[in-house]
C-alpha cells in the first residue's frame, strides 16, 4: 500500500504540473533592441536610405522579419532584411525614396539562443505630406 505521503504527493505533483504548464510563458524575449537607425520617433529632415536595427544578441538572419509600413499600413518595400555584413547583431533593410509622412517599423527576430524579439516603433519624415 502506498504511504500517505506518496499518495498526497502524487496529487500535488499532477496538479502542480498542469498549473505550471499552463503558466509556461511563451519564449519571451530577453534580447533587446539596443539601437535603431532611424531612431524611434525620430523626425527626419531627409528620408533614410535604410532602416538598421541593432540587438544585444546575435540574430539568425534567415528568420529575421523587418517591415516598414506607411501611414496607410502598406509596406514600402518587398525586400527582405539582411544581416549586416560586419555585425551579426544587426539587420538592415534598404529603403526606397520615402515621401514625407509617418512610418512604422515592425520587426520579429530570432536570437541565436532561440528567443524571439518582436516590437515596433515609428519615425517621421518631415515635409509636406501629399494628400491622396
Amino acid at each position, binding site marked *: 500500500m502506498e504511504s500517505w*505521503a*506518496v499518495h498526497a*504527493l502524487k496529487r500535488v505533483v499532477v496538479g502542480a504540473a498542469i498549473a505550471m504548464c499552463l503558466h509556461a*510563458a511563451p519564449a519571451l*524575449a530577453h534580447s533587446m533592441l539596443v539601437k535603431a537607425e532611424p*531612431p524611434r520617433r*525620430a523626425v527626419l529632415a531627409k528620408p533614410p536610405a535604410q532602416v538598421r536595427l541593432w540587438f544585444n544578441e546575435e540574430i539568425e538572419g534567415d528568420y529575421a522579419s523587418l517591415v516598414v509600413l506607411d501611414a496607410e499600413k502598406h509596406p514600402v518595400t518587398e525586400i527582405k532584411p539582411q544581416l549586416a555584413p560586419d555585425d551579426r547583431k544587426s539587420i538592415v533593410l534598404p529603403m526606397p525614396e520615402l515621401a514625407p509622412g509617418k512610418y512604422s517599423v515592425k520587426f520579429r527576430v530570432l536570437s541565436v539562443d*532561440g528567443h524571439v524579439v518582436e516590437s515596433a516603433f515609428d519615425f517621421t519624415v518631415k515635409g509636406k505630406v501629399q494628400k491622396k
Partner: protein
Amino acid sequence: MIEVIGALLRWLQLASNMILIGSCVFLAIAARANTAVDAPWLARLQRALPWLSVTLLLGLLGLLATTTAQATGVAENAWHPGAWLELLQKTRIGRIWTVRAALALLVFGMALYIRVSPWARWRYVLCGTVAALTLAAGSLASHSAAGELSLTSVLPYALHIVLASVWFGGLPAILTVLFATSGKPSHEEVGRVDIQALKRFSAIALPVMIAVVATGIIVLDRMVDTSYAALAATSYGWFLNTKLALLAPILVIGACARRIWIPSLEQNADVAAAGGQGLRKWVTVEFVLALLLVLVATVLANAVPAKHAVIENWPYPFRFSIDATWGESGVLIGAGVGAALLVLAGGAVVLGWTKRWGTKSRIAIPAALTACALAVAVPPLAIQAYPETYRKTPVPFDAISVANGATLFAANCVPCHGPQAKGNGVLAKTFAKPPVDLLTEPHTAKHTAGDFFHWLTYGIPGTGMPVFADKLSEEDRWDIVNFLHATSRGYQARLINPYVAPNQPYMAPQNFSYATHDGVSGTLKDFRRQKTVLLVLFSWPESRARLDQLRLAYATLSGGNTVVLAMPLNDLNPEDLAAITADIPFPVATQGAPEVARSYALFRRTLSNPDLAGEGTVPKHMEFLIDRYGYLRARWIPAVDGTGWTDIGELMRQIDLLNREKELRPPPDDHVH
C-alpha cells in the same frame, strides 16, 4: 498550446537525460563486479537505460517540432519536416540540436551494448559521459549563453545541470536497489538491501549537492543581477521560489538518509527494517519532489530571467528601499538596533555550540533574536508602492524623449508645477498641499520611474494632481518621466564646471542620435570605450569665432582621442549651413540637433547661476566633455565661466585627465529607474 507542449517535452527530455546520467554514475560507483551476479537491481537498472535513451530521443524530436513553430511564428510548422530541416541547417539552436540528437543516438547504442555485455565499469563511465555531453550541449542554447558564447558564461550552468543529474538521476537507481525484492517484502527483507551500494553512492552525494548549490548560486546571481524585486513579483521569481521551496525538503530527506536511515541498515534486524522502510518511503517522496523540481527548472530556463523581467504589476502596497528612506527618522536607529540584535544572534549560535545547549535552545534563541532584528530594522525601510512602481520604461532615456517630455510638460504641467518644475506655478498656492519641487529636491532619486508613471496616470488623490491616462498616451507619460529625470540631473549638474574632477564620474547624460552634414549618422553611445566627445552647442553667427578656433585646434583635439560634435541651437538655413561647413573638419549635425539642444539645455545650470527664475535662459553657446564611458565630466559656458576653454591648452589638460582614467563605473543605463 504550443508553449505547453514545448514545456512538457523539454521536461521529458531533460528528466530522461538526467536520469540516464545519474543511473550510469550510480552503476559506476555503487556496483562491483561481484554484485553483478546476484543483485536484481543491477539488471533492472541496465534494462531501463535503453528506454530512457528512447525517451530522450523522442523528447528531443518533440522539442525540435515546437521550437520550429516558435522560431517561425507559424504553429503548423511543428508538423512540417521541411521547416525542421531548415531550422537545423540555418540556426545555431538547430546545429546544437543536431549535436544533441547525435549524442543521444550514441547513448542509445551504448545502453543496448551495456544490456547485453558483461559488467564493466568503463562502459557506465563512457555512457554517462556521453549522456552528460548531450545535456551540457543544451546549455549552449540557454540564457547563460545568450549574451556571449564563452566558457565562463556557459560552464557554471553546464556544471549545475550535470551535477544535479548525478544527484537527481541517482534517486531512481536508489529506489531500484530499495525495491529490488519482488512482491511485498517481508519485515526482514526490507532491511536486507544492498547496503554497500547505497553507502558508496551516499559518499559522493553530499559533495555533489554542495557543488550543485554553489553553481546554482552563480547562475542565479547572473540571472537576477540586482533585480531583487522581480523575485517577489514575476513568473521567474515565483518559479525560482518554488524551486527553492522544493529543494528544502529534498535536502532534509537527503540529510536524514545519510545520517539516520542508511547507517541504521547495518544495525540489528528491527532497526534495519525501520531504516529500510524510512528510506523507501522518503526517497520515493524525494524523487517525486525532484521530478517536480526539474519541471520547475524547465519552465524557469524558458522564462524571462529576473534581470530582464518586466514587473507589470507590483502586488504589494509597499516596498523596501534604503535609498529612499535613508536619513528619515527611525531608519538609522532601527538599522543600529537591528545590527546589534543580529550580532547577539551570532553570539548565541557560538555560545550554543561551545556551551552545549539543548537542540531547541540552539535553534530557538538565535532564530528569535534574528526575527527581532528584522522586525526592528526592516519596517522603517518600507515606503508606499504602486502596481507600476517597478515597471520598466519602454522609452529609452534619450534626447528625443526628453525633448518631447519638455513639450508635454510645458503644455500640461506648468500652471501648477511652474515653468521649471519647481512647484511654483501660478495655481500652486491654490492647493492645500502645493506641488513638490521636482527641480531642486531629489524626488527622482527617491522614487522609481514607475511611481511617477503611476502619479501621471492616475493622479494623486487629495491633491490637485489630475489623471492624465485619458489625455496623454503611455509613451507620452514616460516622456514626461524622462524629462523630470533630466531636469533633476540638470540641477545636480550645476556642480560641474570647466575643470574635470578626476575619477568622479557620476552624471549620466541622455543618449542622442544625429546625422551630420557629411552624411554620417550615429549616436552618442557609439563613442563609448573609444573616444572622448566634445559636444558643442552653438548659435550662428554668435559662435563663429569659437567654431573657427575649434577648426584650427582640430588636429590637436583629434590627437587627444577626442571627437568634436557640433550641434546648432537655432535653425540653420541652407546658406548658413554651407557657410559653417565650408572648411570645417568636424561634423555639424543636420538631424537630431533640435532635440539635443532642448534636452542638453537642462545642463545649463551652474553654482553661480542656477537659473531658477521664470522660464530660465538658455545660453547662446555651451560645450560639454563626455568621457569614454558615457559620463558628463566638464562643461564650459562662455557667458558664465569666462574665457575657460578658449585656452585650448586648458581644454587639452581636461581631456588628458579623462584619457588617463580607467573605467570606474558601469556605463550609464539606457533607461531611467
